[in-house]
């Protein structure tokens, strides 16, 4: 099977249309960023408090809002996420400029109190089983000792109750419960959970009808540090790539590859801004992936250009670049198509948590492939033509380097 048989497309002849398209996309993204006053950062970078709650039944959003107001949490954002049947709400509190870490923690506690208040509050002295960790459950069981293990020694009892607590909590967290049980009787399914154990749990715990799926409290410094680090480290990575390509090809190839990759990142970020999507930590991971992918794609094309330069010393450089792109077109389409399939699968089936991540890659794979042909290659061609005009050709230097490479 074969898609392309020696195509003869004049890519460089059409470059201006695509460069114009790139500029348009980049401009749209940048305008959107300016209008939004920068990118929309997720809580990881912006700082603040975020709590993702799953309710047992459809949440009463108005009641929740009232309850939050009652806890003095003005300006809290609420957003329903996931499938409707999941009953999930993300509650966010923005970081005030002066917020200390203590204030952040207070915000979270207030949200939890509001949630508890929404469904009648908590019985005195009891702990919410749906939001308890294994050590707390183990401690309570240790005290009530429903299995009568204290006679066997402290060590034995502690180990037994720790294992039991982990099994109970594990059952609660696995699907279909997914973090919420409605009745202690459900726990009978757990090995070792005797009616006596359930009675003891009943004494010490109550069951709220919400479970905190995810909670984040990010102080101002950490958010800022992360943003700065992500930027600097990525730039350093690009710099290292530039140096390597400079060493293997020549400087202009490195510059072109880095510019093309940068172009991809800018346009992808533009899409995020245009579609009002948040930049989260996982999106940063996706952008790093995109950088790697785009660079890989560009180098494959450049490698072919380098090879053809060595083989055909007299060929017109524009024709040579066109031919190189055509020769690698089959692999470009194949690889991009397959990678696109993989990330599309992530986008469709990957679930809530990696949605932003998959979106960045879906956009990134297309842009990354496109930029190798329409951004990176034209830059090299442009520089080459300039070089010929001024009399100092770029070609001989490539040949020199290739000669060295060939000897190795």
């Amino acid at each position, binding site marked *: 099977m074969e898609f392309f048989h020696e195509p003869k497309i004049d890519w460089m002849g059409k470059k201006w249309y695509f460069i114009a398209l790139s500029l348009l996309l980049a401009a749209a993204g940048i305008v959107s960023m300016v209008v939004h006053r920068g990118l929309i950062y997720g809580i990881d970078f912006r700082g603040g408090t975020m709590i993702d709650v799953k309710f047992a039944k459809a949440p009463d959003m108005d009641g929740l809002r009232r309850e939050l107001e009652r806890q003095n949490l003005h300006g809290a954002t609420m957003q329903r996420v996931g499938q409707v049947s999941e009953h999930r709400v993300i509650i966010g509190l923005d970081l005030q400029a002066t917020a200390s870490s203590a204030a952040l923690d207070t915000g979270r506690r207030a949200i939890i109190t509001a949630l508890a208040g929404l469904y009648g509050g908590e019985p005195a002295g009891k702990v919410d089983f749906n939001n308890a960790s294994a050590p707390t459950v183990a401690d309570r069981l240790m005290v009530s000792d429903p299995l009568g293990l204290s006679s066997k020694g402290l060590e034995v009892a502690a180990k037994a109750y720790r294992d039991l607590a982990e099994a109970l909590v594990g059952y609660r967290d696995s699907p279909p419960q997914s973090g919420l049980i409605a009745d202690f009787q459900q726990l009978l399914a757990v090995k070792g959970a005797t009616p006596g154990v359930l009675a003891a749990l009943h004494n010490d715990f109550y069951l709220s009808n919400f479970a905190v799926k995810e909670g984040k409290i990010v102080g101002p410094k950490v958010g800022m540090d992360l943003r700065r*680090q992500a930027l600097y480290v990525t730039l350093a990575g690009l710099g290292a790539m530039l140096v390597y390509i400079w060493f293997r090809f020549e400087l202009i190839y490195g510059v072109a590859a880095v510019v093309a990759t940068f172009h991809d990142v800018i346009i992808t970020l533009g899409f995020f801004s245009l579609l009002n999507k948040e930049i989260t930590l996982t999106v940063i991971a996706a952008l790093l992936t995109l950088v790697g992918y785009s660079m890989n794609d560009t180098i*494959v094309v450049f490698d072919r250009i380098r090879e053809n330069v060595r083989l055909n010393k007299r060929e017109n450089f524009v024709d040579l670049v066109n031919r190189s792109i055509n020769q690698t077109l089959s692999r470009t389409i194949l690889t991009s198509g397959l990678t696109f399939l993989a990330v599309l699968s*992530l986008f469709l089936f990957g679930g809530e948590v990696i949605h932003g991540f998959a979106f960045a890659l879906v956009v990134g794979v297309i842009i990354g492939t496109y930029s190798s042909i329409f951004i990176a290659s034209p830059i090299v061609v442009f520089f080459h033509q300039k070089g010929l005009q001024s009399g100092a050709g770029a070609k001989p230097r490539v040949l020199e380097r290739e000669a060295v490479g060939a000897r190795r």
Partner: protein
Amino acid sequence: METKIRSRVILIVVVIVACILGVTGFPKNVQELKQNALGRIHLGLDLKGGTHMILRVHVEDAVNVTADQALERLKDESKTKNIPYAEIKKDDLADQQPPIHRIAIRGVPQEKTADLQALATEQFSDWQVSRYPGDATAWVLTLKTTAAATIRNQALVQAMETIRRRVDAYGVTEPTIAEYGGQGDYELVIELPGIEDTTRVKDLIQSTALLELKLVQDGPFPSREAALSAHGGVLPPDTELLPGPAGPTGETWYLVNRVAAVTGRDLSGADPSRGTDGRPIVNFTLTRDGAARFARVTGANVGKFLSIVLDSRVVEAATIKNQISDRGEIEGSFTPEQVQDLAMKLRSGALPASITYESEATVGPSLGLDSIRHGVLASIVGLVAIMSFMLIYYRGSGINANLALVLNLVILLAALAYFTATLTLPGIAGVILTVGMGVDSNVLIFERIREELRLGKAVGAAVAGGFEQAFRTIIDTHVTTVVSAMILFTFGTGPIKGFAVTLTIGLIANLFTSVFVSRVIFDYILSRREKGAALSI
């Protein structure tokens, strides 16, 4: 030729077996297999649930304590060495970064200058003595920067150890406690798998847990003002006012000795227990040295009140009925959890410096499970799509590519297990890029082989030529990406590092699988092929 292929096949089989055993161990049944695989591949908190915290250790606290002690010592030594002075006080340059700690001593007569300098060099070797600018009789002792740095670093290490002991005692399996951020940030990252109710564990980590047993001089008073006015507005020397537990009539204040009879350092053990009335209490025992001191103090003060002070707060004050030596109990209005935690904190020792939280992220285990389920489904769909396509497009050689891809993933998993690296969500991003570049390597090679065949070369020559041509490209793409991944690994933290780890391992594995393994399979097929038969590509 035959033996060359055979030895290469053996090498590949050894690698495969080693990798598979690296992940699965030697299981006796399916359940054990699952357990081993899950135990060896360390999942990050974003996948398995738990709490991730970044906190700052205020190491300057520890330096201040050292400086305070030096100040007291300087006063004492000046007295014994007969050096008169008008005033000794702290004279810190707190706005410097890092702060500079100084002690100023004023009004030292000219003839005692040599004595003071001798004292400073002999007994205060961590301090630099110099003239105070603009005052002939004043001197200043400056804590040497190296000494201050040592104290700060020790405080950080000690805080880490204390926190580790507390977290271990709390029952967290496989916690991570490590330095975070740059030099001079004094930040720690703490990861607690499986912990979602953070209020309790945060309190457990954060509280200084400095236990002091102090003699009560007077009290309780209903307020600070009442206590002061009872002593004519001036506290007696070497005493201090401390808040106590809230009583039925509101707050209480105690006037206690500044110097403690015994402190948490003198404890040899602390255990949760129940008092005679069934209320939760903490029993503690003292070291021999501590017990001797405690016996002396309690013996001399029978009938007086003794206060139990925790983090500068009186939790309990009780009459000394008779001389106590090596054991005692702390009674307050505690819940069972509080007693458990207090005993734990006392056993783990006091923190050398205060702590504040800078960020905290909790992933509920059920969310982690959901993520894994979705991620696995998406990965399988993606892989099946890629593999089917490779089979359709490259037919026989597609099997070759798919084998290389699967082997790449097996090596990647095994390497993660061997290096005990952690697989996180960003790490999965690295795996996706690895798969993409792995497929790309095979496509590059196959397309080149097709080109060579089109030029009319014989099958053997075409395969050799295809690999040779593609190899240069593959090396360039891989080295470029690995170089940048190394940078991400070295300078990045958390998510960025997680991405770099899987990407680096994956790409190195990919060089092995798509260039070496794939070639061996081709050579093997070619060696068994009938002369002149076409290659399925």
